[in-house]
């Protein structure tokens, strides 16, 4: 005997703890099965691109903090690299190493948050999440030493960073590098082979290689599907060409692969941090001749970087004035959502949030 079921359309979000901010979906269910998903976004739209046209190049740095607010340092980095290319500024070596250290610390923090909330969405209420947030807290304290702010850093400036690291920063960083591998081991022992995690994440939300590339999906999601594409290695910016690190790849492209990739990348970031500490030398953190009021010549520039979410790039157009004529953000969070519908079709309601969590989007960056 078969029961006749009627599809039901439901509204999920924008205020919902599993939507990582203000994401809204119009979901149609047939029984427990998902038959249609339509993302409705824009609840956090602040018009950052328009605001950037009214500010000087240095002031825009503060706007970039508020886009992806769990990875402010990489946002700063992407924007600054674009400005430096546009204005032809050569940064100071010490400034570059410092901003690479900041960016890699930020990557660890962002991946920790992503994995913590993914496990939280799976139903492991808060214990693994708080383990992750405890480690992130140490990173935020180091950021506080660097620039006085925890989340909205605005640490970078055209030419390097605005302030040298204080003396207490280096012992804190070394202590973190010593402790963190054990903390990651703890998390792995708790979760990676946990049966419930395996059942809920393996072969759920599978993304194929070709689909991924065609939909411009980048970052850990792309690498989880088995494409070796990391801009730190393929198109090195800053001093990543002097750094050695390996790039883990997934095989299936399911939620579990995406979870594992982030764990591996945290370990790789620790390796990169050690090499940065070896290479950094005393000197100015910012060339004296670079003014705070940058006035680039006419032209445009786009420098993509590997942010924790994927390829992040600022397309800047200059008309020769003191503020950008146009500032477009290539937001990985937004573009990684392109295939959300294809990923969850045919799955159960509960898998929707797990798959959404595994893409790791940040609503500040989706809406800008």
């Amino acid at each position, binding site marked *: 005997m078969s029961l006749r079921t009627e599809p039901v359309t439901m509204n999920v979000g924008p205020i919902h703890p599993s939507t990582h901010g203000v994401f809204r979906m119009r979901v149609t269910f047939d029984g427990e099965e998902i038959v249609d998903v339509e993302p409705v976004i824009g609840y956090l739209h602040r018009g950052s691109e328009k605001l950037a046209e009214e500010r000087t190049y240095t002031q825009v740095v503060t706007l970039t903090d508020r886009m992806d607010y769990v990875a402010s340092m990489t946002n700063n980095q992407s924007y600054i690299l674009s400005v430096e290319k546009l204005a032809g500024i050569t940064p100071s070596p010490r400034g570059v190493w410092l901003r690479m250290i900041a960016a890699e610390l930020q990557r660890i923090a962002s991946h920790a948050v992503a994995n913590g909330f993914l496990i939280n969405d799976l139903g492991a209420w808060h214990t693994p999440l708080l383990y992750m947030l405890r480690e992130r807290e140490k990173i935020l304290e180091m950021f506080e030493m660097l620039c006085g702010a925890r989340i909205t850093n605005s640490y970078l400036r055209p030419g390097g960073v605005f302030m040298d690291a204080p003396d207490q920063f280096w012992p804190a960083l070394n202590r973190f590098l010593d402790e963190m591998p054990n903390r990651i081991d703890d998390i792995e022992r708790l979760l990676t082979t946990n049966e419930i995690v395996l059942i809920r994440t393996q072969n759920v939300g599978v993304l194929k290689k070709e689909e991924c*590339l065609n939909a411009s999906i980048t970052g850990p999601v792309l690498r989880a599907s088995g494409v070796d594409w990391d801009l730190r290695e393929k198109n090195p910016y800053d001093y990543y060409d002097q750094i050695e690190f390996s790039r883990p790849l997934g095989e299936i492209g399911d939620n579990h692969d995406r979870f594992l990739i982030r764990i591996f990348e945290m370990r790789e970031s620790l390796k990169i941090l050690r090499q940065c500490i070896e290479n950094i030398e005393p000197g100015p953190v910012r060339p004296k001749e670079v003014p705070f009021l940058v006035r680039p010549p006419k032209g445009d520039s786009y420098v993509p970087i590997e942010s924790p979410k994927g390829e992040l790039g600022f397309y800047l157009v200059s008309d020769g004035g003191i503020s950008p004529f146009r500032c477009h953000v290539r937001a990985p969070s937004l573009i990684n959502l392109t295939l959300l519908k294809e990923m969850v079709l045919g799955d159960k309601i509960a898998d929707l949030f797990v798959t959404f969590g595994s893409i790791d989007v940040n609503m500040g960056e989706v809406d800008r």
Partner: protein
Amino acid sequence: MTKCFSGEKINELIEEIDPKSVVSTNLDSVHIKPENAINIFSKLKDKENCQFNLLNSLTAVDYIDHFEMVYHLTSTIHNHSIVVKIICGEGRKEPKVSSVVSIWKGADLQEREVWDLMGITFENHPNLKRLMLWEEFPGHPLRKDYLR
């Protein structure tokens, strides 16, 4: 290191695909004719020595006397990238280009964003609705003449 082609090299590549479709060659980009865009983009994606399989970014700029579309394309196979630009229509009236969603699915949300904030119509887009703002919103805020 990703090889960024100069404008002249991009011009050569496109001339092979579709002769006389390049309007002007710049330092690191080319402007192509809007009516040839779909043909050129699909060949750029499939041709052996191009294989631009990743659409990095798609955006529009309001240059006051005209609107310009900017496409950043990368090949993950050959690790090279190009920049292609299109001037949409004449002047500011009803800017319009063909949608590239049929070639790269990744253009879907980005084209909706450009339509929403810059007001450029994409022909043959499967679902051209506003993305960030609501349907009744007056005007397109990223245009230079908005609220001026």
